[in-house]
């Protein structure tokens, strides 16, 4: 039997209501030492303040709706244990995601995030629940599958993006997003990368690479790699951005090489001096 100890945990929560200045409220709630931060937030709502607003749904990092900042760092409170973020003294600070307008308390307007996903024409389907082992070999070891399944290399590359739960944590962690509202951002660019992998039609490929190559595309990234570090699903958006850059650069080199090959040489400076058929000296 698991023994549980009850904790009195203080939470410092960002509060905002339309027409009121933003501020922090501190609530102390009682939760088990095995509790996750979302449990403490639920306790605040249930026992301290029914006007406290935040999003949550699945409670197991599948929906991505509860994403916020815990002590300044983007996390999913449904899989973050209280004991991992509380030092035993100072309140655990909860803030809404950055780079999105705040609607109320910890609720932000994430419509800009989904607009970016739509721009890539990306319909997201996940290959596995994140609470399960991501490797199929590990799945077999748990007995869920009867034998290991070999996944083609190309498919395993796809799976990294399929695991995106649309939590928008990467968009909050990205410092460049702070000052360029039109930047497609880590999630948008990772979606473009994934859609580009799937695209066969040259016009679709051109459209996707055109988006990535635009003013607010891959070139806005300045390699902070915070998106990859913060992603709770190991999607690695920064890696996808760099892969898109490589493809764009390679295409430019190819275009330049092709252009150089078709431009006729108008003068041959290495030709020996002498009369030409036009009567010049060939210099």
């Amino acid at each position, binding site marked *: 039997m698991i023994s549980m100890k009850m904790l009195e945990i203080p939470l410092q929560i960002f509060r*905002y209501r*339309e*027409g009121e200045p*933003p501020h922090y409220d501190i609530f102390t709630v009682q939760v088990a030492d095995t509790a996750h931060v979302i449990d403490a937030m639920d306790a605040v709502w249930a026992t301290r303040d029914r006007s406290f607003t935040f999003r949550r749904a699945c409670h197991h990092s599948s929906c991505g709706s509860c994403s916020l900042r815990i*002590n*300044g*760092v983007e996390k999913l409170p449904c899989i973050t244990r209280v004991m991992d973020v509380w030092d035993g003294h100072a309140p655990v600070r909860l803030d809404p995601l*950055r*780079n999105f*307008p*705040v*609607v109320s308390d910890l609720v932000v*307007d994430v419509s800009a995030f989904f607009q970016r996903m739509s721009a890539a024409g990306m319909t997201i389907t996940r290959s596995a629940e994140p609470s399960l082992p991501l490797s199929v070999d590990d799945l077999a070891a748990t007995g869920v599958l009867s034998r290991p399944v070999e996944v083609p290399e190309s498919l395993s590359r796809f799976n990294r993006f399929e695991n995106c739960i649309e939590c928008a944590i990467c968009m909050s962690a990205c*410092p460049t997003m*702070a*000052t360029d509202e039109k930047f497609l951002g880590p999630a948008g660019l990772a979606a473009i990368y994934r859609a580009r992998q799937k695209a066969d039609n040259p016009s679709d490929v051109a459209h996707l690479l055109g988006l990535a190559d635009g003013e607010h595309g891959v070139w806005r990234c*300045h*390699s*902070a*790699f*915070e998106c990859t*570090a913060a992603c709770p699903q190991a999607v690695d958006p*920064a*890696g996808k951005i*760099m*892969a898109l*850059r*490589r493809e764009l*650069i390679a295409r430019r080199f190819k275009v330049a090489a092709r252009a150089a090959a078709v431009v006729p040489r108008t003068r041959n400076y290495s030709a020996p001096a002498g009369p030409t058929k036009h009567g010049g000296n060939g210099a």
Partner: protein
Amino acid sequence: MATLNYPKIRRAGRWFDVRRRRLGMWAYTLNRITGIGLVVYLYLHLGVLSLLARGQSSWDSFVSLARSPFYLGLDVVLLAGILIHGLNGLRIALTGFDVGVRAQKALFGILMLAAAVALIAAALKIFGD
């Protein structure tokens, strides 16, 4: 529905917020600080060069000031900015070509170590002469 949107100048403060962030964010912030510093220096440099238009005496008096330990210290600060920005820029260029993305933290560490070694050698030379 009125949402809370912070002004851009306040949001730009997030460039410098490295609290509880990883090494990549420190590299990003260092690049911003040194980049802004080098732009400011460029304008100061152009201002100093304009002294040449005011004649030899103006220039000579500036040169004597520039030999003071304080100004030599500023030279070391300038060099630090150039080394950090340049070498970190090399890391950004390499990762931007999809080279060394997985090793970007180690790359940053090695390049900053090289910057530190070069800076110490340069500082010894500047103050030694």
